[in-house]
Every structure is written in structure tokens, then in C-alpha cells.
């Protein structure tokens, strides 16, 4: 991300706590935050309020990346997914704490706080959300080797 500290800092409520916005006209929830509702458009100006999402949802689709971008070397292979949150919005992030061969479309997941990337050895560390399987603590079936 280079020297992007202010750009990251500005988004902390969204990155740390999944704070989105809700259109008070149609009640749709958006994440990341929007200043204008794409459905109500002009009518929604000034009528968007912040709403903290619960961070729970299901996997819509996923893939396992074997060829990562340069600052994610060492993490590969890792899984990324599009998660449909219960409130409606969809987000893209990594799936963690899960054996790669157990990830399934439809799997229930929950947001967890993780290091996303850092600006080399001397730069800032950027935190954010990744998703772990919800069944993790109910049943403990999710065991095995990870790499």
C-alpha cells in the first residue's frame, strides 16, 4: 500500500468494525459506506446513517490463491472469498482458521480481526477483517493440517 497511512486511517471504522451505512429511505444497508444510495439517489442525500454490521454471513464463492501478490508471499496458499453478510452487503476477504479443503459455498462465517498487510519491515501495519468458519467452536470438526 505504500505510504498510505491517512488513506487507511480514514477507513478504520469500516476496516476494524464493519461500520456501513443504511439508507433511511429504503432501509438498504451498504458496506463499504456510501454517501448516496444507488437506488434512491437524490432522495437519499443527507439520509444515510452509520450502522455497525454483525460480521456474520455465508460464503458466496471462493478460491485458493497459489500465486500471491508480492507483499503476500509466504501466506500462500490462502483462501479468498466473497462473503454475503446477513444484513445484505457483500465483501471480499480471506477465509482463515479453516482447512483449505473444507471451504464450501454456503458455509457460515464470522468476521475476525487480523493483520491484513504491512508496509515492509519499517512501515505501518494495516489491520482489518478476515472471516473464520462459525462452526469452529461448535463441534470442533474443523481440525487437521494446514500449510
Amino acid at each position, binding site marked *: *500500500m505504500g505510504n498510505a497511512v491517512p*488513506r487507511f486511517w480514514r*477507513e478504520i471504522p469500516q476496516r476494524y468494525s464493519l461500520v456501513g451505512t443504511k439508507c433511511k429511505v429504503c432501509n438498504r444497508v451498504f458496506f*463499504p459506506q456510501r454517501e448516496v444510495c444507488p437506488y434512491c439517489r437524490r432522495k437519499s442525500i443527507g439520509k444515510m446513517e452509520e450502522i455497525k454490521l454483525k460480521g456474520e454471513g455465508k460464503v*458466496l*464463492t*471462493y*478460491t*485458493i*490463491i*497459489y*500465486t*500471491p*501478490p*508480492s507483499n*503476500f508471499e509466504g*501466506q500462500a496458499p*490462502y483462501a*479468498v*472469498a*466473497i462473503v454475503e453478510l446477513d444484513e445484505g452487503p*457483500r*465483501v*471480499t*476477504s*480471506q477465509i482463515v482458521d479453516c482447512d483449505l479443503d473444507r471451504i464450501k*459455498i454456503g458455509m457460515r462465517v464470522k468476521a475476525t480481526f487480523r493483520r*491484513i*498487510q504491512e508496509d515492509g519491515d519499517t512501515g505501518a501495519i*494495516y489491520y*482489518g477483517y*478476515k472471516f473464520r468458519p462459525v462452526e469452529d467452536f461448535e463441534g470442533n470438526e474443523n481440525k487437521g493440517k494446514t500449510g
Partner: protein
Amino acid sequence: MREVAIIGVGLTKFGELWDKSFRNLITEAGSKAILDAGISGSEIDALYVGSMSAGRFVGQEHVGALVADSSGLSSMHIPATRVESACASGGMALRQAYIAVASGMHDIVVVGGVEKMTDVVGGEATNILAMAADQEWEAFFGVTFPALYAMIARRHMHEYGTTREQLAQVAVKNHENGLLNPEAQFHRKITIEDVINAPMVADPLTLLDCSPISDGAAALILCPLDRAKDYTDKIVKIIGAGQASDSLALHGREDICTFRATVNAARMAYEQAGIKPTDIDVAEVHDCFTIAEILAIEDLGFVKKGEGGKAVEEGRTARDGDIPINPSGGLKAKGHPVGATGVAQVAEIVLQLRGEAGERQIKDARIGLAHNIGGSGASCTVHIMEVA
């Protein structure tokens, strides 16, 4: 709005062209187009060029001026405009040029597309390409371009039963076509097994599901239709020029397996041309990844949603099929210098419609379509050409 013809076509070879610089490439393509059209540089009224990321690939911005200068046109002080829309930069540059000529603002306009991707190390090229995705909400988390398309592929397989082999067949077919294209990057036959067993990039896509990193450039000369006969008797005209946009991030789409940008750009082009998908004889579509070609033939209306895999498997999109797709070899075998692709696709269609496509000629091609996508489907241009 007046009708617009394409009177000249120029292409460089696509590939890892160590000896050619960014400036060499665009000048070569432009020169070939000018010679093909039989015009002199002084007749050119304006220049449009598509380039995704000259800034990051070769450290150079201000590309419009640069290209006019390298082409020897700076002494004429013509308007030179660089257009950017990730991998749809070329198609979008063409549409801007088309609008300029159709509106009467300019007469003879040259359109170029160029990308020099091999001056940076491979990993860096991947990072630069990822700038076509949503930096804050996709790339930030370690998502790569292949990963986005892999997620589309997985969902498509889940919803429609598309198989791994059907995806692979797209690459196999395009490589077969590429064998007959002298300017293609790859002249190599591959099998479905080769594709499936190639190094894994983002499950389920392997290296052979992905278009390569390439250098290259392409150029077209546009002119008002009523003057085209002064330059050529094999006149090809643009009958439809559509463009559309969609959410930047893949997760913002209504349906992950449909590129509404394609659907809308195509509808715009079909309506303008007054034709239906079944009227298309040949198409060059944006196969940045094998799944992208399957989505394209569905979203362009050639087959129903979900049936793209079957169509490829049945050979319908081969050169001798009922809907020949990517006779040039597509992005997969021909190469994908991103800014150049949109222009190169149209160049291929022009050659096909003129009957100048050599061994890969599609018989009786009279109406052709070129489809160019930016990023994971956030932008799209569709151009339809017809023999005049």
C-alpha cells in the same frame, strides 16, 4: 451522426518483445495502419490511444502527447487523447474516436492501443494489473486478478454445472486458432490435460487458463464512410458502438456470473446496428481467463446464461462452428498487452470482414463483433462491424 469506416489496420507481433520499447511498439502499429490505409500523416485530424498503465509499467504518463510525438505527428499539433479503462482501454479509445468522427468533429482519426508489460519483473506486472480491481476492498486483502475470475468460475460451476474440462477447452481452441496467426504470442498446441495439470494460479484456474503478460500495439484508421472509397475498396464500417459500466468490485455485482456491463454494452451496439446476436458471423471476445470467454458468449447473447460451457465443449465456438469465437487465438494465445487488446480485436474483425485473415479466415464473414472488458467486468465496450 454520420457513418464511420475503418480504412487502415496495423498490428505489431505480440509477445515478450525485449527489443521493442513502448514508443517503438506504438509507432510500428501506427505506421502499419497508415500504410495500410494509404493515407499520409498530414491527413490525420486527431489521435486516440488506449493504455492501461504506462505510468507503472514504464514510468510514463502524458501518453497522448507521447504517442503523437513518437508517431511523428507532434509537428501538426493535433488533439491527442489517452483513454484508460484498465483492459478495456483500447476498446474505449476506439469508441471515443468513433464518436469524434461520427459527430463530425474530426474526419480522419487514428486509434492506437499499446502496452509494454515486460520492462518490470513478473510479480510487479501482476500487482499493476490488480489496479484494475478495487484497491481498497479487493486488492487490499491479497486478492489477485486470477483470483477474481477463479471465484466467478467456481460460482459458475456451482450454479450451472460448468466443468473444469469445458473451461480448459476454451484455451485449447484458442491455441489451435493461434497456430494460424503469425503475430500471435504462442504457436503451441495444448490439450485439456495440459491445461488442468499446469501450475495452479488460483483454484481452479491454472497458468494455462490465464492470458499471458505481453508487449504489443495495434492501430486503426477511421474515416467518414462517404470518403472511405478514396482509400480502399474493401470498406468495413462500424455499425454499432456500445459501452457500459458496472460496480468496480466483483462483490458489488447483482449476479457474480453475469457481466451486466457486457449485456448493456452489447444491447446498445445491437440496437444501434439494428441486428440480433444470431446475425453475428464472427466475434473476438475478451478471454483474459477461460471463464471470461464462457461468460462473454452468454452475456453477448450467443447462448443462454449457463450454457457457455456446453457450447464450447460441443465445438460451436471453434472456427468451423456456428459461432466462431476468437479466430485470432484470443487473448490467451494471441497475447494480451492490455491497452492494445481492444484495438487488436477490432483489427482482427476488420481483417476477417475484408477476407484477409489468411488460414484462419472465417468463411463468409460479413458482420463481426469485438468485445473488450475492463477489470473483472466493471467496464465494457462492444463494437459491431459490417462489410460496407
